[in-house]
């Protein structure tokens, strides 16, 4: 059998990839009739009705499509040779084609640009500090739903590499006030650590935004810092904000708002920032009470001046010393209190914490608070002008989930308005700068010397990121007023900012600090000399922005790459060649990164 099979196999090999149909004649048909073991008399060399019947019978027996026509599958079966597997598709880490256009979308910020995009890109731009090939592959591999769930459960993401960077680079980030105060500056004066801890926290925050895999968590942390804002760099809280960041914002960012509000209101940083440390019963300081109602919870229009005064009385005694929490019963105003619909007997000097806790619970669960938090979330993640329907839906989720943040976000991210909102946010400076940096696929390089009270010296990695934040006035957590950085485009668009934004990619590409200086854009984005100029442009625009560029912009960029003098023009297929990549690719990358598309989140 084996011999025969081998013989049959050998005899049929010439026909394996041919197709023989009824009516055909010749040696192939004779061999077919023999292989089908038709009677010798019937092996006529003509594909007649009997042959067709035999073919159909064989195909049925072998569970092949009973077509009566002999194609590759049938020939292979007859020959006893397995069908070759289809060639695996070449895996392309970066989409070389232009992004999928799934709906015509316009951005309010740049109404004449097409901002359609594929869902993976939308998530990457909107919920992270910037897309790169790794991130997109991750989203596409897991699928949008699974990736989102993973991001909503940051503990499930191994982020040890980033955590190690932060822990080893800024070991004193969370040191106590005493330890920070004991640090000396270069001229030997005490207190250097208090100030420098501000710089550490800014650098650590910027670093996390670049390197953390828990990207959504970092985005939400930033949102809560803008909401329960304590100005990093304000004298009175120097040294206190790193612990506030850790123990209030990061601890509760994905917990419940009610818990976060409790933690924030009594935290020494907030107490010191809004001047509650010495607020006494005889003349309560109203600063914290006012912001608690106006900014942190229900908002203007929901309370009266009398409510502010009553809340200030409840807050008396809630103090701090040396940035450690301290309740001072002798400061506390005693007697019944009422703030809006909340009452408490507040009968003794020790009743302050209980009265305050009750007030905070009442405020956290107030419907007006739900509306304000929902609006904040929608502004952060959907658009500057979210619809009332969306805000109401998110507020309902917030209330239904007892202020739990993750389920509220889940409702937001699955809402059609979120899904359809590609390009509706203008990147704030920090988002723009960080996205540029992430596009360069940076790797962490440890500082040359340990980071001490000098704040890290001039050779810290990610200097470019910090410089960009500084020039564009968006240094992390540094907004000078208690209302946090604005999250609408109008607050950030400026002529000077436009020039700075247009130049930052130049510094990234040509000057870049040492963390990214080795970025080879051609290698990183798989650009080869065999590609046409148009393919190079399509590959890079897609990989860096995820938006389809208009035909005019695509052509302009291809022409630049081909011949910047404009004397010759690229064809759609002519290979771009090594020289053009060598001499003009960096400028092309800069043009794409500096383009208006890159400013749309």
């Amino acid at each position, binding site marked *: 059998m084996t011999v025969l099979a081998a013989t049959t196999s050998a005899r049929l090999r010439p026909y394996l990839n041919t197709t023989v149909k009824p009516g055909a004649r010749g040696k192939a048909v004779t061999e077919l009739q023999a292989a089908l073991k038709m009677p010798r008399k019937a092996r006529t060399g003509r594909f007649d009705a009997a042959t067709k019947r035999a073919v159909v019978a064989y195909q049925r027996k072998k569970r092949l499509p009973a077509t009566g026509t002999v194609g590759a599958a049938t020939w292979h079966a007859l020959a006893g040779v397995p069908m070759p597997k289809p060639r695996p598709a070449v895996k392309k880490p970066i989409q070389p084609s232009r992004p999928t256009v799934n709906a015509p979308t316009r951005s309010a910020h740049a*109404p004449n640009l097409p901002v359609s995009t594929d869902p993976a890109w939308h998530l990457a731009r909107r919920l992270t500090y910037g897309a790169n090939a790794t991130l997109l592959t991750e989203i596409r591999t897991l699928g949008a739903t699974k990736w989102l769930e993973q991001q909503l459960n940051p503990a499930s993401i191994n982020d040890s590499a980033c955590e190690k960077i932060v822990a080893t680079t800024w070991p004193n980030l969370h040191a106590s006030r005493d330890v920070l105060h004991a640090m000396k500056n270069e001229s030997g*004066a005490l207190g250097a650590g208090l100030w420098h801890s501000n710089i550490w926290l800014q650098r650590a925050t910027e670093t996390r935004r670049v390197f953390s895999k828990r990207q959504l968590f970092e985005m939400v942390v930033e949102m809560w810092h803008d909401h329960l804002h304590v100005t990093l760099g304000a004298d*009175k809280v120097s040294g206190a904000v790193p612990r506030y960041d850790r123990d209030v914002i990061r601890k509760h960012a994905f917990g419940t708002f009610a818990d976060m509000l409790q933690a924030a209101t009594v935290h020494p940083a907030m107490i010191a920032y809004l001047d509650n440390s010495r607020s006494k019963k005889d003349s309560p300081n109203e600063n914290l009470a006012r912001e608690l109602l106006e900014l942190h919870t229900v908002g203007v229009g929901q309370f009266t001046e009398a409510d502010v005064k009553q809340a200030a009385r409840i807050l008396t005694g809630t103090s701090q010393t040396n940035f450690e929490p301290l309740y001072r019963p002798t400061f506390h105003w005693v007697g019944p209190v009422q703030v809006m619909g909340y009452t408490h007997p507040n009968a003794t000097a020790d009743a302050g914490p209980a009265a305050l806790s009750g007030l905070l619970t009442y405020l956290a669960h107030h419907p007006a608070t739900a509306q304000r938090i929902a609006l904040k979330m929608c502004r952060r993640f959907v658009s500057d002008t979210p619809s009332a329907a969306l805000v109401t839906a998110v507020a309902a989720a917030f209330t239904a989930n007892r202020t739990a943040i993750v389920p509220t976000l889940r409702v937001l991210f699955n809402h059609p308005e979120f899904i359809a909102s590609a390009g509706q946010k203008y990147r704030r400076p920090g988002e723009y700068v960080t996205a540029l940096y992430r596009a360069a696929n940076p790797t962490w390089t440890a500082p040359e010397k340990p980071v001490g009270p000098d704040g890290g010296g001039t050779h810290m990695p990610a200097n470019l990121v910090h410089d960009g934040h500084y020039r564009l006035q968006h240094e992390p957590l540094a907004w000078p007023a208690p209302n946090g950085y604005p999250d609408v485009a109008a607050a950030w*668009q400026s002529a000077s900012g436009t*020039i700075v934004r247009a130049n930052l990619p130049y510094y990234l590409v040509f000057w870049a600090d040492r963390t990214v200086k080795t970025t080879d854009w051609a290698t990183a984005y798989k650009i080869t000399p065999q590609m046409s100029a148009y393919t190079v442009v399509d590959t890079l625009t897609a990989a860096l922005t995820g938006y389809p560029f208009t035909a*005019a912009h695509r052509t*302009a960029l291809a022409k630049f790459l081909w011949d910047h003098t404009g004397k010759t023009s690229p064809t759609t297929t002519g290979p771009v060649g090594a020289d053009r990549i060598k001499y003009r690719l960096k400028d092309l990358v800069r043009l794409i990164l500096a383009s208006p*598309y890159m400013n749309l989140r």
Partner: protein
Amino acid sequence: MTHNPFTDHDWLLDEQVTPVHHHESTFLCSLNPGEEVEDATILGSPAQVSHASRAAKADAVEAATGERPRAHLSRRGVLRGGAGAGLGALMVASATPRYAFAATPTAPRDTIVAIFMRGAMDTLSALVPHGDPAYYAARPSVAVAKGQVIDLDGFFGLHPQLAPLMPAWTAGELGFVHATGNTDPTRSHFAAQDNVERAAPANIRSGWLGRHLETSSTTQGTFRAITLGPRATASLAAPFPTLSMTSVADFDLRASATYKPNVMRDLDAMFGDAGGAMSAQADAAFTAVDRLATLRAQTYKPAGGAVYPDTAFGRNMAEIARVIKAGLGVEVACVDLGNWDMHNNMGTATNPDGWMSRQLRDLALTLAAFRTDLGAHFAKTLVVTMTEFGRRVAENSTGGLDHGHGQAMFFMGGGIVGKKVHGRWPGLDKAALDAGDLAIATDYRHPLAEVVSRRLSNPRVDQVFPGFTPTALGLAR
């Protein structure tokens, strides 16, 4: 479409904030004894913030209504006109002024140059009350000795390093207001700078110069307001963009020389096509780049043999003179002179290399060069200096001065009543001091309101300094 500057701040008042800060300076001092820490906030503080806003509200509104802020004709047309239209064409285009914002239909205004002395300048060392014995009693080692003072009026005199300002004084183009400042009791650099630059209740986030621009014209020319520095200063915070530049040479698109025209053209085209606020902002930016191209191509030579000191401040003031003289329509220019936080070892007037001597020399040589350089332009220029607060009258044990209260402001220009120290002098007797500091006899908004009204021809002083009723000192002509 006109917009009301006091209702159009809605992004600034995004959360309807009315923070009322009751500062606890005294208590905080006992909580935070690290004086050095506070000092550090002034030296490269990340939050030394000019949270100067650069909102594009006006542009956004106009873009949304389909009205372009200005005609988009020339430059883009030239640039897109053909492959040959590169930098050369750009320069030609820029040579033609396109916007007639200078022809604002109001009285001609002075150009105001606002100099902020960051870090709290000790103005008692600059404008010395040498006729007040309490001054010498309080400062046994750092006072400017009687023999060193350049007498002005028998009571006040200048630090010897300010001698270059004497020609301006003699010409009646330099005057002072002493014992002025911000009455807010804060001694925090951060909070005080914020207060002074906003010059308004805390719920208004714009700056006083921003509000002046807003209320004095509906047109926002590209160069109407500039900050010499990396970011627009907080005094200029307004719901429309103002330019900031570190120098004329620096306000430019960076690109490799070979490809620069291509980079400019392609970016310009992409932003121009984008529409909306993004186009409007880019247009303002690229127009400025474009209009500065002519200037950039030339080497600047100050007029009248003026020599600016080779310092950051000297260079910045030279740049301001340059853009004023170029006729770009500058109405407001802001610049900082920092490094005044002299808690330790400030030096004496007899030592020209002491900290205070060097600072004052930089100031005086620069202002003198600026006056010479401007020539005829100086008649329509107004220089104002301010600082966040003055310093303690009595020196401390380390040859320096701690944070104080009252200060002196400098006013220089063709339109001021010079050769005079304006304002009531409360004196330096112990009883007259405000917790050890020079008392504030004249709120700093009085002189500012006067020059805004008389020299900047803006009748809406009530909107520039909301909630404040100014009284004229007779400072402006």
